[in-house]
């Protein structure tokens, strides 16, 4: 039981790192544009396929194609923002939600149409071993995914706080009118933020590709978890998202020790509903008025 | 017994005191003006009376009933109607249906509600526009729609929040005449107004707020001479100059 629990805690934390990268992108988009991006999971799926195909067709190592999927999704994100999101920024919230849902439907089923529903796996041969340390199995791809995810999350945080562009993005998310007044080009910031959010989730897709079964609907699992994390961390908060991601990863994986595996997701939903009802500002946000 | 009575009402937001130990009363059949510089807490007082905000201390009564703890819709049903400073029409409902919402307070019969709403639209001069959607109305028309909706609930006390802001002199004169007609019909009114001429002409009594506190109360002529009131208003002008 002891090692089982230890194993659960470890893999929970490792998953949490990836959730962090996915959620940070979602929370960035929400914070700046005020949009809940339902297409986030589908974009992650695209990131997975980018690396899969680059590997299968050209033998590109996924840790190299990480750059391709992040850049590719950044471009796609900017395009989506310009073409589809900008026109609905002033529309009712449910129309924004439906629009991103439409994007998700198109992307997922385009993938299904192009690449069939067959589940695919990407095995990195040089990482195909599993050392045991103190009775706990370590999976190298998972460790790498965790490390790179957390590093990218921290990097994004630094970018938003240290660089001029990052500060402009934060200014827009905190004080739209004020940002306009000091001459920030809001349209560009929107496109940039959406692009960066997509790049994050694309990178996350690549990072999990070596140990996740890839299929057109795989993003659905992550997007729900990411919603939970974002709400839990306080909508629009990056540091909150990182903490909440680790917490959710942990809760999910520890719960799986005690209840049937299929039920572990229920734990996530229960947390989600409770947080939305009782602390909609998130676990780490300020208390209620 | 006054129709509306506030005693020692206090409201704070975070560390800021918006309304401080405020007491005043409105007698049945009166028109009382609530004035004060920007940010003096007038709209907060309306929100406290109508249940959109809960006071941190003090008591509010309407016709002898305590209002504290009641929801806005319950307070409306007791007979308190209000308008909003920024007009808040139901933008996808026609002008007629906007007023029907108010009229349904008194009846569940759609035909009767329509009849009541049409009569009120006739009165405020919007009958010709009853099929229009609110976004296509002028500001003056939207203000009248706001008033018509509140009237349709059949209130005993009507709270008007800056119904004359942004109106032309002619429209203001029409509005004053209309409010006088409502008053003659027995309605009690509490009005917030920035257009001084209008509020001086209409009100029998003024309550002056400054930083959430009542600094003066009395007939318009007296209030206009009060040195504290003059200082409050001049201070605001000096600060904004």
């Amino acid at each position, binding site marked *: 039981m002891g090692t089982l629990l230890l194993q659960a805690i470890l893999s929970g934390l490792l998953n949490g790192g990836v959730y962090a990268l996915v959620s940070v992108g979602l929370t960035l988009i929400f914070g700046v544009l005020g949009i809940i991006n339902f297409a986030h999971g589908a974009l992650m799926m695209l990131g997975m396929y980018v690396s899969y195909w680059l590997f299968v067709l050209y033998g590109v190592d996924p840790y190299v194609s990480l750059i391709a999927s992040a850049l590719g999704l950044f471009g796609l994100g900017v395009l989506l923002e310009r073409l589809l999101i900008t026109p609905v920024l002033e529309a009712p919230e449910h129309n924004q939600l439906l629009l991103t849902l439409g994007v998700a439907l198109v992307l997922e089923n385009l993938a*299904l149409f192009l690449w069939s529903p067959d589940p695919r796996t990407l095995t990195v041969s040089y990482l195909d071993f599993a050392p045991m340390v103190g009775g706990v199995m370590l999976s190298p791809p998972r460790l790498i995914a965790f490390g790179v995810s957390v590093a990218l999350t921290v990097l994004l945080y630094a970018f938003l706080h240290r660089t001029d562009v990052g500060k402009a993005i934060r200014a827009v998310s905190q004080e739209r009118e004020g940002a306009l007044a000091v001459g920030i080009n809001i349209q560009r910031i929107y496109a940039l933020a959406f692009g960066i959010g997509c790049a994050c989730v694309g990178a996350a897709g690549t990072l999990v590709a070596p140990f996740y079964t890839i299929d057109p609907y795989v993003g659905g699992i992550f997007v729900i978890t990411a919603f939970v994390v974002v709400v839990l961390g306080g909508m629009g908060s990056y540091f909150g998202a990182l903490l909440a991601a680790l917490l959710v990863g942990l809760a999910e994986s520890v719960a799986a020790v005690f209840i049937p595996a299929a039920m572990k997701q229920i734990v996530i939903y229960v947390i989600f509903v409770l947080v939305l009802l009782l602390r909609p500002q998130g676990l780490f946000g300020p208390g209620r008025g | 017994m006054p129709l509306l009575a506030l005693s020692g009402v206090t409201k704070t937001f975070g560390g800021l005191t918006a309304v401080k130990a405020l007491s005043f009363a409105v007698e049945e059949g009166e028109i009382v003006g609530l004035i004060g510089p920007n940010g003096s807490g007038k709209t907060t007082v309306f929100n406290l009376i109508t249940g959109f905000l809960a006071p941190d201390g003090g008591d509010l009564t309407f016709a002898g009933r305590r209002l504290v703890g009641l929801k806005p819709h319950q307070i409306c049903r007791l007979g308190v109607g209000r308008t909003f400073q920024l007009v808040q029409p139901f933008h996808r409902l026609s002008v007629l249906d906007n007023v029907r919402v108010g009229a349904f307070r008194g009846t569940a019969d759609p035909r009767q509600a329509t009849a009541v709403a049409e009569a009120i639209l006739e009165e405020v001069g919007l009958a010709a526009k009853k099929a229009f959607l609110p976004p296509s109305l002028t500001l003056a028309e939207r203000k009248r729609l706001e008033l018509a909706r509140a009237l349709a609930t059949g209130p005993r006390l009507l709270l008007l929040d800056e119904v004359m802001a942004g109106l032309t002199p002619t429209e203001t004169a029409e509005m004053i005449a209309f409010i006088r007609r409502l008053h003659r019909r027995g309605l009690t009114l509490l009005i917030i107004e920035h257009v001084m001429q209008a509020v001086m002409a209409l009100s029998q009594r003024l309550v002056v707020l400054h930083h959430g506190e009542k600094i003066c109360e009395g007939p318009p002529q007296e209030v206009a001479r009060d040195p504290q009131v003059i200082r409050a208003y001049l201070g605001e002008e000096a600060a904004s100059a």
Partner: protein
Amino acid sequence: MRRWLSRLAWLLVLVPCLTLPLYVGQYLAHLAVMVLFFAYLGVAWNILGGYAGQFSFGHAAFFGLGAFTSTLLHLHWGLSPWLGMLLAGVVGVLVGLFCGFLSFRYGLRGPYFALVMLAFAEMLRLLFETWMAYRYPLGLPIPLQGTSLAAFQFRDKRVYYYVVLLMLAGATALCAWLARSKTGTYWQAIRDNEEAAEALGVNAFAYKLLAMAISGGLTAMGGTFYAQYFLTLEANEVFGVQISVEILLSAIIGGAGTVLGPLVGALALQLLAEATRVYVRAFSGFDLMVYGAILIVVILFLPQGLLEGLRRAGLALRRAAGAA
């Protein structure tokens, strides 16, 4: 004259609707059933989402519960699914009240309400999937009885057509009546501006709960119809996100907050889905891709739905005719 014209128009709609099964085969009857069925679900969703303005993203919760309620009652106690459908409606009402109480009590609005409903549906899906895997690993053994009125089973799809036509007619009539009544007017006021509605004496909490109850009850009854029509039941299907999406799509695409919107939307979507299935049969996913694209186009260019688009086109035509 006008009155006679409108009666004539009604006849022109009603007669073909009522006699359709006389001159179509099983295939077209199935298509017609699907159109009417999704129109019915759209009407049910529309009451909450289109009129009361509470955007539910998890109507599969009601749908799945309805399907399971009647089916399990039939399986275990031999209760007729017709009665089961009524009980499913009761379950839908109760669950609607429960979810609504939780959500509205804590002031959830807009996308937060949408997400909580999604979470409710997903929780039910996982619970039922787990329970099914444990209790019925081979699926629910629904006894097939050919055509039996008592068992709500018919070999001929044209019988189902009349059942769902009746359901749709009932729901639409209810919706049309409510829309003009005090209740419907209050719902729309809440949708457009909850605070202003409260100031006019509208108990927003109570009226939102009422919308949840009616919408949930009707949707759950739709679940029973689905179970009886397909005579199979998979938890991941009836509680799935896809059902939630399909339920709201017909209302949104047709025109949320209008009586006939869901019918127009269901007609457009089902015909389109069928066309893509027929012409690009070889490629799975194509129909959903087209759904997504249409959803995007409608949100961008016709945010009020197809019905509003048709109305505008009609106005433009009339103006053009008047000018000529």
